[in-house]
Every structure is written in structure tokens, then in C-alpha cells.
């Protein structure tokens, strides 16, 4: 059951921001509502005004430039189905298929996911490896922030109260990048997410650059520079040799706490296990091997 509120459906971001500025603390941006309405039903949030962002011009489009831009109000389902996403960032489409359940995907949005900044977000983790930049709009104009700077902590972002997340810009990896996303856990939300991408040289023999992010174990997802550095320049056939060390490096880079998802030491160990596994899968993809993807219980591999 929801408490009464006024619904605003502005047509432009400028109008919406002006509303947010006027209404202040009493207002909340509203997209799919899969998080917002849930918290409102529980009485944990009691905004008296909702500002619908779904009708804002440009918010629900996916555009391709040098980079791929996902409008904030694009649903997970639209990401999953978009030919553009499939062509430019196929892993993003594949991961979208495994976010939450079909109903949440049909309604929930990319912007809502990032703006909510739940520590157990698949998107936030994956997007870090795509050097995601978020565009924010406010009465003061537009600004851009790296996703890494936008997400400050658990349910905490750099967004000002009168600011809207307009879109997120992803920098697609070069063609032929071997990448994988793995999530693990028995709970509704993932206990761990690992995104790993190996950019290869022209002959697909060597890693020229690596992007690795680990999510869900810390208050916000993190890139793991130590692992990326260690992978740079490694020959594809030798990836297996470094898998163990890579896992350990990643585990050393996170600071988990004990919670319902597990004890800190378990989560740390799972980071090692799944970064290692992710590397092996990516290495297989780098080799173009047609070996079937291994299956692990309670793990989803995209």
C-alpha cells in the first residue's frame, strides 16, 4: 500500500529538474518504480511528489556514437533486445537477460539501477569495465561523471537532489575483445559479480589491455588495477598460468564485511575463485575455443 503522492509527468529534463529543485526533499525521481515503490510501500521512503522520468525527451533511447549511450529510462528488457547493444556491447545485452526476473526487467530501468546504487548491482559492476560515464542534468546544466565517481557507496551517489541521471555512456571494447560476466550467490541479488574483459592484439595472441571489476562484496563495485596490470601483455596461452595469481590479487583488493551473503573471508575467497574462473572463460573465448561454458551451481555466466 502506498501513501498518497502527487505525480508529475514533465516532458523535458529541464522541467523535471526545475520541479525537483522546487519540491526539494519532498520529491523523488520515479522511473520503473521497482525499487522506489518497494521502499515507499514499506514506509521507508515517503516522498510526497514523484517526478516521472520515463517521458523525458531522450531518456528512453539507445544511441550509438563513438560510444554507446543508454538513456536512463531504458529498461533492462530493452537493453536485452536492442540490436544496437548486441552489436556494440554484446555482453551488456547478455547480462541484461540475467538481471533480476522477467517482471523487474520489463519495468526496471538502467538509470534506476545506477541511481539507486544498490551494492548488489550487476550493471554497475559490468559498466565499470566499459569506462561508463554518467550524464547528469540539473538546473545548473549538464555534467558528466565517471560511474566510479558517481557511485559513492551503498545506496549513495554523487547526484544532487535536483539532479537527474540522463544517460550512461559506455565505451565499447574493441572488436574481438574476450569478455565475460559471472555472478554467483543463492540470494535474490547476487553475492558477487565479476566482469572481466581482455582486449587482444590483432593476432589474438596477447592481451593488450584488461578490464576487471568486482562487485557486490564492497559497498560499491571496484575496478581492480592490480589485476589489470598483471594481465597486460600476457600471451593468451599463458593466461592459465596466471589465473591463480590473478584471483589472489583480486581477493586482496576487496574489503568485504560479514552479512547475510556470507562472512568476509568466504566472500574474499569467492572473489579469488570467480576471478580465476572468469579469466579461464575469457581465455577460452580469446582462443575462440568452442568448448562449452562450464556450469557452476548458483552461478550465472554471461
Amino acid at each position: 500500500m502506498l501513501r498518497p503522492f502527487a505525480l508529475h509527468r514533465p516532458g523535458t529534463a529541464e522541467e523535471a529538474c526545475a520541479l525537483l529543485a522546487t519540491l526539494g526533499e519532498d520529491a523523488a525521481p520515479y522511473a520503473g518504480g521497482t525499487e522506489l515503490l518497494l521502499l515507499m510501500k514499506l514506509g521507508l521512503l515517503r516522498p510526497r511528489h514523484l517526478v516521472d522520468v520515463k517521458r523525458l525527451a531522450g531518456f528512453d533511447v539507445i544511441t550509438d556514437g563513438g560510444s554507446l549511450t543508454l538513456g536512463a529510462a531504458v529498461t533492462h528488457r530493452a537493453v536485452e533486445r536492442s540490436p544496437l547493444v548486441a552489436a556494440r556491447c554484446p555482453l551488456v545485452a547478455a547480462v541484461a537477460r540475467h538481471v533480476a526476473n522477467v517482471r523487474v526487467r520489463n519495468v526496471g530501468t538502467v538509470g534506476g539501477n545506477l541511481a539507486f546504487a544498490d551494492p548488489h548491482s550487476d550493471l554497475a559492476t559490468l559498466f565499470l569495465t566499459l569506462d561508463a560515464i554518467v550524464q547528469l542534468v540539473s538546473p545548473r546544466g549538464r555534467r558528466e561523471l565517471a560511474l566510479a565517481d558517481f557511485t559513492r557507496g551503498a545506496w549513495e551517489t554523487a547526484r544532487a537532489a535536483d539532479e537527474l541521471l540522463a544517460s550512461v555512456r559506455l565505451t565499447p571494447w574493441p572488436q574481438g575483445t574476450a569478455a565475460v560476466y559471472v555472478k554467483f550467490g543463492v540470494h535474490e541479488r547476487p553475492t558477487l559479480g565479476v566482469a572481466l574483459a581482455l582486449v587482444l592484439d590483432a593476432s589474438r595472441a596477447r592481451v593488450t589491455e584488461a578490464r576487471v571489476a568486482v562487485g557486490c562484496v564492497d559497498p560499491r563495485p571496484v575496478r581492480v588495477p592490480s589485476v589489470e596490470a598483471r594481465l597486460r601483455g600476457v600471451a593468451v596461452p599463458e593466461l592459465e598460468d596466471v589465473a591463480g595469481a590473478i584471483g589472489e590479487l583480486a581477493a586482496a583488493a576487496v574489503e568485504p564485511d560479514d552479512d547475510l551473503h556470507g562472512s568476509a573471508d568466504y566472500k574474499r575467497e569467492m572473489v579469488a575463485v570467480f576471478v580465476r574462473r572468469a579469466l579461464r572463460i575469457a581465455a577460452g573465448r580469446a582462443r575462440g575455443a568452442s568448448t562449452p561454458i562450464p556450469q557452476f551451481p548458483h552461478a550465472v555466466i554471461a
Partner: protein
Amino acid sequence: MTAGGVSRLTIRAVVNGRPRELDVPTHALLLDVLRDDLDLKGAKRSCDSQVCGACTVLVDGLAVSACTYLAVEADGRAIVTVEGLADGDALHPIQEAFIEAGAVQCGFCTAGMLLTARALLAENPTPTREQILHSLRGSLCRCTGYRKIVDAMEARHGARVEERPGSAGTRRTFGGEGAMSGPPATPTTPEERPGSAGARRTFGGEGAMSGPPATPTTPEERPGSAGARRTFGGVGAMSGPPLKWIGRSVRRVDALEKVTGRARYVTDLVVPGMLHARVLRSPHAHARLARVDATRARALPGVVAVLTGADLTWCDPYCGPAFRDRPILAIDVARFEGEPVAAVAALDEATAEAALDLIDVDYAPQPAAITLEEALAPGAPLVHTGEPLAGHFADLSSLKPEPGTNVCHRFRFARGDAAAALAGADLVVEDTYRFPAVQHYAMEPHAAVAAWDETGSLTVWASTQNPYSVRVELAKMFGAPLSRIRVVVPHLGGGFGSKTYAKLEPLTAALAHVARRPVRLAISAAEAFQTVRRCSARVAMRVGFRRDGALVAVECDAQYDVGAYADIGPRVVQKATYTATGPYRVPHVALGAAAVYTHTTPGGAFRGFGVPQLAWALESLFDVAADRLGRDPVDLRRDNLLGHGEEFAPGDTPIDGKYEESLGRAAEAIGWTQALAADRGRGVAAMLKASIGPSVSEAIVRLHADGSVTVLASAVEMGQGTRTVLSQIAAEVLAVPLERVTVVPPDTAITPYDQTTSSSRSTTMTGRAVQVAAEDVREQLLRVAADALGLPARDLALEDGAVVSAVQRLTYPEILALRFGMSGGELIGRGVVAPGRSAAPLGGSTPFWEMAVGAAEVSIDEETGAVKVERYVSVADVGRAVNPLVLEGQDEGGVVQGLGHTLLEEMVYTDGHLVNGTLLLYRVPRADDVPALACRFVENADGAGPFGAKGAGEGSLIPVSPAVANALARLTGVRLRDLPLTPERVWRALRARKDPETHAGEPS
């Protein structure tokens, strides 16, 4: 639209093909608009957090959670609800497929499942299994175990066309039809007392039965294979007429209303003038209520009544089946987090909810005892200090709390000299096992609607498994005669024990009393976590064997955490402990158990009634012993199984099954002796459970002037198929088509007494009462016909709605016309099954023993500790499967529910607070957790129920944990003693094994 914002909107939507214009507040949820404004009640509110899928509707073809979706979003869109799936009377193929596959049980998830399936199939008419499971990621079912739902979705695209419907109703024929012989038509008096000597023979025709039982044909098992090979004593010696309805997987009689969304549950009922209630709950595990002031709440417009504990001076505010220790609302002290402290009845739910904020409560938090250890420690905070009154359950008068402690009841059962036998045993294995507190999560949260009328009579529509227990409780509390309390049970959205005994009914009735208007109280799934749970337990067991493998003694010391109020916990404890030795012959036993109060959600009945906790210990230790003795675990169990006819305990019913068959079939089906891949492990476990003894069931069968039949009985249909089974029994005895039988839902003003729908007893006890009542009608028919035809009754038989002799035939309408003249009239038959008390240790003999065996094949991800159950076989000794498909569905659901507490489920308390009391955080099994699953039955027609049936439905759940843990131990060498076997727990145990030095002493 202006940027000014609106609080109401007129929306236009096409709902199930019909254009609608609706004026809705912006904060209205689509689910409420559909249910309340459009009276489309098919979409249900369950988890209320987008996890379960019960509220699924399609918006422009896409599935959404209507519980978390603003109605205004539907503007300009097409909405499809379950009511819109069928085209007039023509069901949508997916609805047909669900019925045919047996995918419908309680029906609460059904609408959501159907719409999810429909959305998937519209997009992808030939989904792979992976795609089906993926689409069901957000669709929970607590009854079916999912297998039949997935089957139905696969069948839809032709993968299993051979299983598809032919003709209506009875089209699904399982092998054995026609080959079946029934018991002879034994005339029985309406009243019989199977407890008394000599009567047992008529109680189901034991010994008179023969002929091969109906063999269910499941996808993997076709006639002529394993199932059909089985033969039983006396084949061919039998002469009874073939059975027409018993043993056949007829369509569920409630399937149609469930797949069309027409089935009404308590939450769907609207009583004119009805108010809506909400409950204020304590945020503390233990607190004194220094002040509860409802003045501000009472002043809120729309609030009609507010009730606090202090207001309950006009009734007896205490209830409880074991001890009357639980107040309707906390009085002076709140004893668990979530205990009702005050309640509001208002014109609508929103007002009631808003009023809760206006109730001022000063809590003085007190030290709390959350765990068994804390509750049993010297000087522990006491949950109860006064002496509670005895409960309404006469059998429980022996229960006694130990003053000055948190022990609310202690039970001991001994035979022989266990201490000496253990001292002399060649091998003693012992350990302490823990079983978690788990939540039933029946998908329909508890609900009640109560209305007092001008004569002072009370009617309560209740989501309860035992309307008659609720009636007693209400009568006591409100000082009314039983005849003035009417408890009505429409469809029930799952129970599993959570809806036994009074839950919301006393509070709802009290509110209705002070409000002087009908009141509806429907709690959320999160509040169900604060209503009842399974009793967690710590079980220390010692088991002694001789070198040759003979079990010589079992010693058990168990503590069950029954939470803040006794509920039925003490009975759980004593009944389970009594059978702690399982289906084995044990000469020396010393079994002890305590029910212990803690400051947590009350623990009550939950499928298995205390037995899963003990079987977890015993069956694990059995494998430890097999290892130490160098014996095969199956062989060791077989050596010790009780034999048919053997005494379990003096005065109790002798063993009524051939248990070696169940064990043998389970071992065979899992391939026990066959080679096993190196990365797999197999394990087996068995269980024995007593049903309630003594217990009473009564039934009335009415044969109407047109030859149709009404069955009045009070077994609650909660998904297990009891209405269907009772229909089959009546149709069989009276030789009428199933469609001519109507089973009236329980209503204490109309349907006769039935003790409870629990303990796997309905087919046996209520079914037997229906059989006896139908036989009573049959005798009357034969008498009238015999007179009319001038033939002895023995020359007559019932056939297709008529009494026939070799040459003549009188239809039932003709017979009724002969009996009553042309004006009508009806024949009424009465059936009473009332075994009475006995010399058995618990004061009554069990009407049957429920026995089952489980066998698991598992694999492990050693690096993460994630256990995967790859295959699972359950074999239950059911005597006779009245409806094999329904029964299979029951047992599949039981196995999957068992996998829940085995691998996933546990209510977690941190700093005195339940931290995972919602479906977002409490993980129950999903479709993709289900292993390859086969549920089988041993049918020797040796049960006390109709046609040799005996109880089923709980048995399949109980062996799951030990079977899985035994498989895991055989695979990894690691023995876990604490459930659930979460990845982390298993990972720790594996690590400790690998590196015993560093990780010694770590909890496993």
C-alpha cells in the same frame, strides 16, 4: 499534464479485451485496482516485493508485478489478467496444459505462472528447457515442486504431445485401469471404531484386498516397466468389481476454477460493510509495554476501532492449543519481535495503516533469549513467568512447563535399558545435529474476515487448516456456544502446518466485536514470518550397534525452540520424539526432548511435525555407523527395518507397511549398486511418522433426487487435492460419474466435524468417513431397490448411477421417487471415524504409519561449497494412491520444500532481530533448483484408509536433508551437522578437512 502534479487521473485501458475508463488515485497500485475496482481477483498478493510472481499480469504483453506497479501506468495499454486467458468457455491451451500436467495445487501461484508462461510462449513458441526455467526465475510455487509446471510449459509446444488431453475429465488413464480389483462391498455401519478390537478389518478392508494396484505412469516409467512388475499377495484370488475412480489420475475437481482465476480465497472475499484491519507490532524481541496510548489513532477520521491488550477485558484474551499462553494482543509485555501490540479497524486499509503511526507505545526493552543456548542458560531472561492455562487439546493436559525456566514442556519415552545397551554395544556413534528455524511461506499469507450478527453469532471466514480447532478457541475466548461460532474455509493458498490452530481469527473477531462491523485482516508475507515458523532444534543422539549391524539402542536428547508462545510446539516435540528411532527395530531407547521458549516468532506445526529435525540426526548417524561397520548404508538400514505387523510400541498400531519394498525401490531407482561418476555421490535416508491418534472425522453424503451427490466433510482443500480425492471415493462407492459429485467446502455450520487437515490424515480419516457415509447411502439404495424388485439386496449391485440385478435396472432418480414419491427427498448417509483413546504411549494409536525413503545423487563445487542435487528419488508407502498424479504432485512439492531447509532456508537472527524476514532476503527453492526428480509409491493396499490407502504428503520431505548430506559425505568425506548446507558452510567444512591444522575447531 501540467507540471503541477496530480493525485488522481482518469485512465483508459483495455482490460481483458474490454475498454475501461477508470478514475484512480496516482498512488493506487495496479493490483488493488484490478482486485478491488474491477473485481478481478485472480492476481494475488503474496511476497509483495516482485519476487514471487503471484500478482503477475500482462501489460501490452509484458509481465509485470501488479503489486509494485502504479495503476496510472496502465493508461492507454492492454492488460491481461488470468481471467482474460480463456476465450469464453474455451480454455487457453496453457490452461489446459496446466490441468493435464497436474501443475495446479493450491492455486495461489497459478495465475502468475500461467501468465508468465503465456508471455514466454507468445514470444517464443518453442522455448528450450533453459528458457523455461529462466522465465520462471521470478515465479515461486510452494506446493508443486515446479516439475509439473515446467512439464506443462514444455507440453504446450508439443514436446510431450503424447501426454496431451484426449477427452474431458477422465481422459488421463494411468496403466492398471481395468486390471484393478477393489475390496468387496463390505457393509459397514455408519459408525465404527477402528480403535476397538475387531474393527480394524473393516477399516479399509485390510486383508480383503488384492489385485495389482493402479500404477502411475510417469514420463520415465511406462506400463510394463518397473512399476507394473510389482505383484502383491493374492493376485487373482480376488473377485471384487474393478475400481472405476480409485487409482486414477482424474482431473482435479478444483482445477478449472483455479486456472481461470475464479477460485476465491479469504483475501478475495468482500463482506458488505467490511472494515479493514492492520496490526501494530513490537519492534523488540522482549519489552515491557510501559504505555500504549491509542488516543490519537482513535481520533483519525475513518478509524472505527482500535484495540490494545488493555482493552481486552470483555473476553478471555488468551488462546493456544497446548497452553493458553498467547494473548490476542500483547498484555504488559511483548515477547517477540513482531508480536501484535495493537490493531486498528478502519474504513480502508490505508487509513488503518496510517492510524498505526498514531499509536504511541513506550517500550522498555528487556534482555532477550533468542537462541536455545541463551534460553537454557542459568539466569536466562524468562519468556513466561506465570503458569499458563491448559489448552483446548484434551490430549495435552499432561503438558507442563517447568517453573522458573524457559522449558515449556519435557517429554521422555523409554523402553528397555538404553544406557546399558549402549555400554555393551560394539559401536556407538553420536553427535549433535542442528536444524534451522524455517518459514512455511504458504503463498497465501494468513487472512480472516469476521462478522458478528445481531443474535451474537460469529462467522469467521478463515485461512485455516482446521476450522473446528479455531471454533473451539473462539468459543472459549468469547464465551459463546460452539453452535454460534461458524468458521468457513474457502480455498486455501497453501498451509504446510502454518494455518493450523487459531492464528488471526481471535484478533479479527475481537476487532469486529468492538467495531460492531465485519472486519477483514489480511497480513503480508513478511508478517507471516512473525506469525509462525518451524521449531528449530538441537538434537544430541547416540546410536548403538552390534558388530553384525543390529541396532541395539538409541538415546536422544533434543531441544526444540518453540519461540515465544507454545502454539502446538509441545505436541510437535512429544509426537516427533516418540518416533525418533525411525522405521527401525530398536530394543532399547531413551528418548528425551524439551520444548523451549525463546523470544522469537512462535514455532508451530510444519510439514513433518518435528520429525525432520530428528531424522536429520538419526539418518546421518546411520551412515556414520555404516562407514564404521564397513557396511553398505542401504543394507544396514534394511537389516534393521521394522517388519509388517511388528509392534512399534505396546498398544500402538502395528507396522502397516512392507518397508523393505520402499527402501529397495528407492535404491533401485537411484541406481544404488550401479557405477557412479567420480564427481557424484549418492545417499539414502528413511523416515517414519505417526499420524494423529486418536482423531475424529465425520462426513455426510447426500444423494439427491436427480442422482447427483453432495459430500459434506471438513477436510480443507489446500492444494493437496483432498476435494478431488473425496469426490473419487464417493463416486466409487456410489457408482456415479465424478462430475456428479460436489464436495462442499468446510463450514462448521454445515459440514460435520473433522479434527484437522494435517498429519497426512485426510485421505485416510476424512476419506474413510466419506466412504462409510457413501456406503450408508448405498445400503439405503439397495434396500429400497430390493423391496421394489423383490430381490435380495445381495443380488443387486450399483452400476453407472443405477441399482442393477442380472436383468433389471433402477436408476437412482427412480429409486428416490419410489422412496419419496415424486416430490423429491434425498438419501443421507453418515460416516464417523472415531478411534478413541488407546493404550499407546501417546494415548491414542496412530491410524497409520507414514513411511518414506529418499535417495539423492549430488555433486559439489568444491571451490565454492555449492552443493547441487542432481537427481532425487522419493518412495513413499501409501497403501494405495487414490489419485496418483495428485499424490505425485504432493511428494514432488515435499521434496522441493525439503531441499529448501536442506540447502537454502533459515530464519537468521542478528542482535535479536530477524534479518531476513521477507522474500527478498529469505530464499526458497525456485524452478531452477529442482533436480531430476522421481516420486514413486509402494501400494500394497495395506492402509487403514479407503481402499487400503494411508497417509502421504509429509513423508517425502523428511528424508531429504539426511539423504543429501549422506550423499555429500560419501562424495567428499565431509559430514555436516548443521542445516542448511549453504555454500559457505560446506566450503568451511571442506576447508577444515583439507587443512585440519589451520581450521581445526571451525564450525561446520
